[in-house]
């Protein structure tokens, strides 16, 4: 019953095309260096030349790609102008960070091959320079010593060693600098560091500037040498290689002319670099627009709500913004989902206080103080965004399943509020006919700030006589004995003892198999959007369920899975 192609097809295609281009570039450039022009170079270093140049080409390609998925404003713009395109294409733009990571891994992989090949190159160039007897390697290495000719062997003297040469050539030094930057970027981007100590990840990641500078100047020394095209005509290696002792003395075989490859990398990366600079400028300009905090609310379980106003701010449901608080930190921007609806006159975020920056923000906004804070005492904020994510698409499906785990419910707060406003305004343009909402949470405290919203929605639906439009379930995944006992005692009451809602809280985890089956049964032939904001494990489970319960028949029911990622 699976229709895997509907959910994953286009992503797989993109990945395959990307891999295909990588393989093509690798093989193509490997073969380029098997050409006659590089015959004498290969006499000195063998296949290591091709093994170094092939990954270099792939590195050019991947370094061009890596900056593009993180141009948030560009992607949002593409997403916005793609409203008329099929949903499938916009879904690919959601997976930008995944693609960024894949390209990064490929860069690391090719860097490894490139470096290992060059280790052999350096060693063999050194061996050639250390030759005592009159071998072809010796003769080739001597060209350029005091005879005003361009050299072949980049190691010019036998009184040095490969390490010294690596650190005294432009190529070597820039290579080492770029590689170190890359290694530091990668180690600080590990999941553990990123999730727990965001600042380390964010600041270290800016070493990419060093990486790109090193990359662009890497080829300036023109250290990859080969025969000039005209020299190949006069000194054909297939004829003259054997007669190396008589080069210049015999009319058939003059001394070969060498030249270096000009740097090519800049041609690949200049475009994305300009785009990225432009992206940062846009972010900077947007951040300079005046933002005012109109209300601060402290909720239980260390959640801070900030309501703000900014001139000309326009948002869609489920988008996120980057916030900066200059009084806390000049350089740090952190992403937060917008929890307000587009119909409101302000925009709000709910921030969980877990790290340095959030703690300092909490204190700057008044902290634990209970008394009223003057508006002018509240810190100035800067806002970049909003940026579009998966939840924007919610209103494009007839039936939607929304699943939020813990703090992951925040984008759906925006959706539900928007639903409420549209209902209030009798908006007939509302496309979803039915919304299934699941909130999974460990503890009961986290309910309070959301319970109000659900309570109003519940009342609204009852008044309009359309209690069926929104069906929601709340699951307490971390219940203990005391709660279970409390629940048993109050079981018969009309309202839930924890939340005060008519809909009772459920305990444990939902049985997704059943949920999907029931929903598929209720809406045959419909396209059902499944939206999740939560942990990876749940994403895998829901993704699988979506695939399994989708009909192979295009007229049957289809579940399309979208995941929010931070």
């Amino acid at each position: 019953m699976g229709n895997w192609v509907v959910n994953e097809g286009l992503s797989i295609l993109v990945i395959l095309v990307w891999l295909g281009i990588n393989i093509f570039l690798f093989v193509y450039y490997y073969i380029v260096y098997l050409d006659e022009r590089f015959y004498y170079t290969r006499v000195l270093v063998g296949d290591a030349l091709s093994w170094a140049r092939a990954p270099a080409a792939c590195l050019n390609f991947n370094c061009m790609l890596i900056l593009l998925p993180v141009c948030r404003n560009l992607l949002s713009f593409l997403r916005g102008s793609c409203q008329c395109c099929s949903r499938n294409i916009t879904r690919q733009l959601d997976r930008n960070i995944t693609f960024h990571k894949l390209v990064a891994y490929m860069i690391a992989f090719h860097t490894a091959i490139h470096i290992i090949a060059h280790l052999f190159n350096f060693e063999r160039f050194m061996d050639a320079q250390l030759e005592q007897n009159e071998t072809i390697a010796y003769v080739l290495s001597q060209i350029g010593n005091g005879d005003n000719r361009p050299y072949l062997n980049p190691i010019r003297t036998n009184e040095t060693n490969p390490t010294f040469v690596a650190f005294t050539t432009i190529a070597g030094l820039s290579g080492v600098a770029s590689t170190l930057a890359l290694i530091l970027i990668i180690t600080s981007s590990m999941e553990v560091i990123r999730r727990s100590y965001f600042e380390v990840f964010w600041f270290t990641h800016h070493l990419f500037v060093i990486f790109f500078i090193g990359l662009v100047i890497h080829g300036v020394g023109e250290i990859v040498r080969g025969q000039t095209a005209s020299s190949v005509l006069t000194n054909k290696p297939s004829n003259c290689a054997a007669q190396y002792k008589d080069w210049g003395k015999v009319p058939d075989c003059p001394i070969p002319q060498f030249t270096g490859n000009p740097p090519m990398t800049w041609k690949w990366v200049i475009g994305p670099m300009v785009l990225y600079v432009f992206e940062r400028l846009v972010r900077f300009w947007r951040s300079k627009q005046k933002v005012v905090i109109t209300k601060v609310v402290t909720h239980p379980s260390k959640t801070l709500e900030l309501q703000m106003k900014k001139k000309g701010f326009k948002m869609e449901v489920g988008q996120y913004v980057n916030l900066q608080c200059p009084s806390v930190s000049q350089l740090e921007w952190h992403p937060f989902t917008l929890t307000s609806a587009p119909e409101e006159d302000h925009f709000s975020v709910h921030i969980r206080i877990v790290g340095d920056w959030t703690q300092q923000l909490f204190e700057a906004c008044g902290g634990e103080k209970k008394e009223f804070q003057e508006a002018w005492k509240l810190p100035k904020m800067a806002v970049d965004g909003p940026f579009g994510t998966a939840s924007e698409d919610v209103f494009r499906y007839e039936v939607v399943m929304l699943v939020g785990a813990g703090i992951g419910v925040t984008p759906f707060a925006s959706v539900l509020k928007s639903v409420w406003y549209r209902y209030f305004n009798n908006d007939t343009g509302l496309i979803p006919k039915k919304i299934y909402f699941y909130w999974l949470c460990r503890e009961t405290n986290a309910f309070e700030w959301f319970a109000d919203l659900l309570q109003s929605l519940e009342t609204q639906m009852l008044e309009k006589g359309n209690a069926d439009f929104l069906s929601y379930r709340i699951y307490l995944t971390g219940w203990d004995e005391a709660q279970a006992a409390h629940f048993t005692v109050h079981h018969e009451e009309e309202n839930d003892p924890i939340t005060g809602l008519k809909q009772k809280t459920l305990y444990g985890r939902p049985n997704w198999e059943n949920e999907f089956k029931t929903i598929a049964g209720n809406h045959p032939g419909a396209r059902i959007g499944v939206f999740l904001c939560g942990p990876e494990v749940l994403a895998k489970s829901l993704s699988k369920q979506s695939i399994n319960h989708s009909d192979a028949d295009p007229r049957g029911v289809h579940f399309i899975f979208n995941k929010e990622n931070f």
Partner: protein
Amino acid sequence: MGQIEWAMWANEQALAAGLILLTGGIVGVAGQFKDWQFAAYGIAAGVFICLLEYPRGKMKNKDTSIERMGQRYLTVCVKAFGPLTRNYFVRAGLHAVLSVPGGFMLPTVLGCVCVAIASLIYLLAAIRGEQWEPIMPRVESKQRSGESMKEPPRTHPAPRAPEETARGCCVRQPRSHLCQLCL
């Protein structure tokens, strides 16, 4: 930057550095480079560093620390050295010393610099008073039932709806699920 545990990053960096040193060493030995003895050292030092750094320490801030796959066995070994492995000044010094011979040969130079950087980050962690604490497996608290059959059990099964409402619409879920009242 109050709540950052630098040791976590130092650990990632050191593990990566160990792998890089190891790879450089293998290249140097397999390619029979001059001064291959330094490459052989690189292999030995790289393996040692990887083994030392593989078990991740416990994070102070978080309740749940993330273990690397299969690190339990190495945790026991590393824990056995007591203060030598717990103290980050010792680790910083150890890594600084281990990095030096790598600098004498090109294949291991990158490993040398990476291990040195890890050493510096560990030094920073040590100055801020961080320590390596092993992640030990959590002991499951056993719930014992009462001494005799007549005592009520100390744990209660999940409460269920009364039989009348359950009949006809209730779907009994396996494991810990409560019987859902259908709407």
